[in-house]
């Protein structure tokens, strides 16, 4: 029983991180219908920027994270302007290849600047606390609370603000949004900004319990793809739900099935889902 609750808590933590990454991915897919393979590189850069800020200038964890959100968000905007915007009329295979090109570049770039070593990120929240008989570090609790706070904020932003509803409008119908006077280019940039920011938050939150290295985005991004297919590509609630489902499956699978093969679980899940429903579980467009 003890192990079970502990694993459920772990699953919640992993799920929170996955959800945040998948949210960024699903927002971009909803707006532009691009599977942004470079999203994993944004995640990786988010961790590195936070780490550098903390090590180099000794900035506090939260401020470093804010800087990272800004930097990676702007990078996302840059990517949209320089790569995806010129390709908006190209066949879909081109977007994918361009995104892979960006991914390769950003990884090599990170390796050039920060080296290929595995780094650890110190956190001011390393203490061990006791909640309902479980032991967990404050950082893990923080990941959960932080992720849920971000999700609520994002939800309020999308549903309650004018700018947020332009994103939803564009996801529902691009031409329609243009007809009612929405500047779709600006909305696309905004979406990339949010998407990059979410990746940076996810990476900065989870980096202290994982390691920071140039290839850290690989597995996460693959799993994020699994999640958004699970939850319906472009669907925000789907991404959140899918993230938690995957988190729980993985942490329980690692305990009760095999730790070696825990990474395969996610991909097997996807292969099974796509085998039965080739267009994903909830192939409804929009939010």
């Amino acid at each position, binding site marked *: 029983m003890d192990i079970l609750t502990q694993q459920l808590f772990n699953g919640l933590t992993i799920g929170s991180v996955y959800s945040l990454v998948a949210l960024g991915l699903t927002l971009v*897919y909803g707006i532009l*219908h691009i*599977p942004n393979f470079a999203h994993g590189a944004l995640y990786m850069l988010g961790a590195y920027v936070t780490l550098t800020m903390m090590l180099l200038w000794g900035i506090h964890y939260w401020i470093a994270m804010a800087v990272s959100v800004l930097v990676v968000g702007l990078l996302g905007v840059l990517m949209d302007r320089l*790569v995806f915007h*010129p*390709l908006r*009329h*190209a*066949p*879909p*295979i*081109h977007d*994918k*290849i*361009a995104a*892979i*090109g*960006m*991914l*390769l*570049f*950003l*990884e*090599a*770039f990170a*390796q*050039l600047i920060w080296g*290929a070593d595995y780094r650890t990120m110190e956190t001011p929240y390393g203490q061990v606390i006791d909640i309902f008989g479980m032991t967990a570090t404050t950082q893990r609790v923080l990941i959960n609370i932080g992720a849920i706070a971000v999700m609520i904020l994002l939800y309020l932003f999308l549903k309650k603000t004018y700018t947020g509803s332009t994103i939803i409008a564009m996801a529902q119908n691009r031409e329609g949004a243009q007809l009612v006077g929405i500047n779709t280019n600006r909305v696309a940039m905004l979406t990339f900004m949010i998407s990059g920011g979410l990746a940076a938050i996810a990476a900065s939150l989870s980096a202290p319990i994982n390691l920071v290295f140039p290839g850290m985005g*690989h597995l996460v991004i*693959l799993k994020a*793809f*699994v999640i958004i*297919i699970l939850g319906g*590509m472009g669907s925000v609630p789907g991404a959140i739900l899918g993230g938690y489902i995957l988190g729980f499956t993985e942490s329980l699978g690692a305990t009760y099935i095999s730790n*070696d*093969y825990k*990474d*395969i679980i996610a*991909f*097997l899940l*996807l*292969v099974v889902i*796509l*085998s039965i429903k*080739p*267009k*994903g579980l909830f192939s409804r467009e929009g939010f």
Partner: protein
Amino acid sequence: MVSLLKNKGWVIGFIIAAILFPFVLSNDYFLHVLTLAFIWMIAVYGLNLLAGYTGYLSLAHAGFFAIGAYSLGLLSVNTDINFWLALLLACLITSAIGAVVGLVALRTREHFFAIYTLCVGYIIYLVIDKWDSLTGGVRGLIGIESPSAIGPLTFETPLSQYYLVLFFLLFTVLIMYRIVHSLTGRTFIAIRNSEDLAQTIGISTMKNKLLVFVLSTFFASLAGALYASFIRFIGPDIGYITIIFDLLTYLIVGGIGTLAGPIVGTFLIVAVSQSLQFLQDYRMLIFGPLLTLLVIFYPRGIVGAYHDWRMKMAARKRNRPQKEQRYFEAETDESEKKIKEG
């Protein structure tokens, strides 16, 4: 793309250059690099048939390459069957796995297909990496035999292996040429241009897609098996996603959906990589943006760009009526426009 190959001079020129190369520069190192490049070319041809001609971007081909390599490696290390039989078996095993994967994967389209195959590729890599008792895990497989002799022909020296791989490459090119210019090839292109339209005119898309998928895994596994027998050591890394990104770079630079593309792209990138050896880990700093820029400005790579330029020149020279020139351009660009609209 048709007219490029109609200039048989190109093909004959390439063959003569490749055959004569060892006599001009008898340097074992260059031979080794070129042999490896030929092996990659075979794999890129496999990818080209699927991604370039049929429009399905498969990211699982590094996995099939690895299955081919491991099949040959395991057959060679654990049993003592003849090398050529092992080579054939390796290709057949991989094609069979490819058929099973294809049956399911091809039900998905576009983005879903790319993501699905990416996950399949990753599963193959993880299985090879973790299945210690069969594949040797991270330690890899050592002591794979090199090709055994056929009669008086032995394949011990680098030179003979070079010619062997060259033979397989030419065999691949010949088959590709025959496929692309057959009705089957036209069918593949029709599927790329518009799957719904292809279905309307009575093409069984699933059957053809499965055929092209299996064919393309066959060539990936052939390349993998040759790689295993040439390097004689394989590790799980050959199935990692970086390999498929490399293959994709070769294909895009050379020209996706062109017959000469895989050779041109692979040769250029390998040559440039050799002269930029000091970069090694950082070569993606150059190739990453190159990939992106090419896709934006020259989506059909060097061969495609050259082809377009020739078309323009020819049209200008002959001063043909606008209509005919447009017919030529339509042949090459139609597909992309179609996909855009669809």
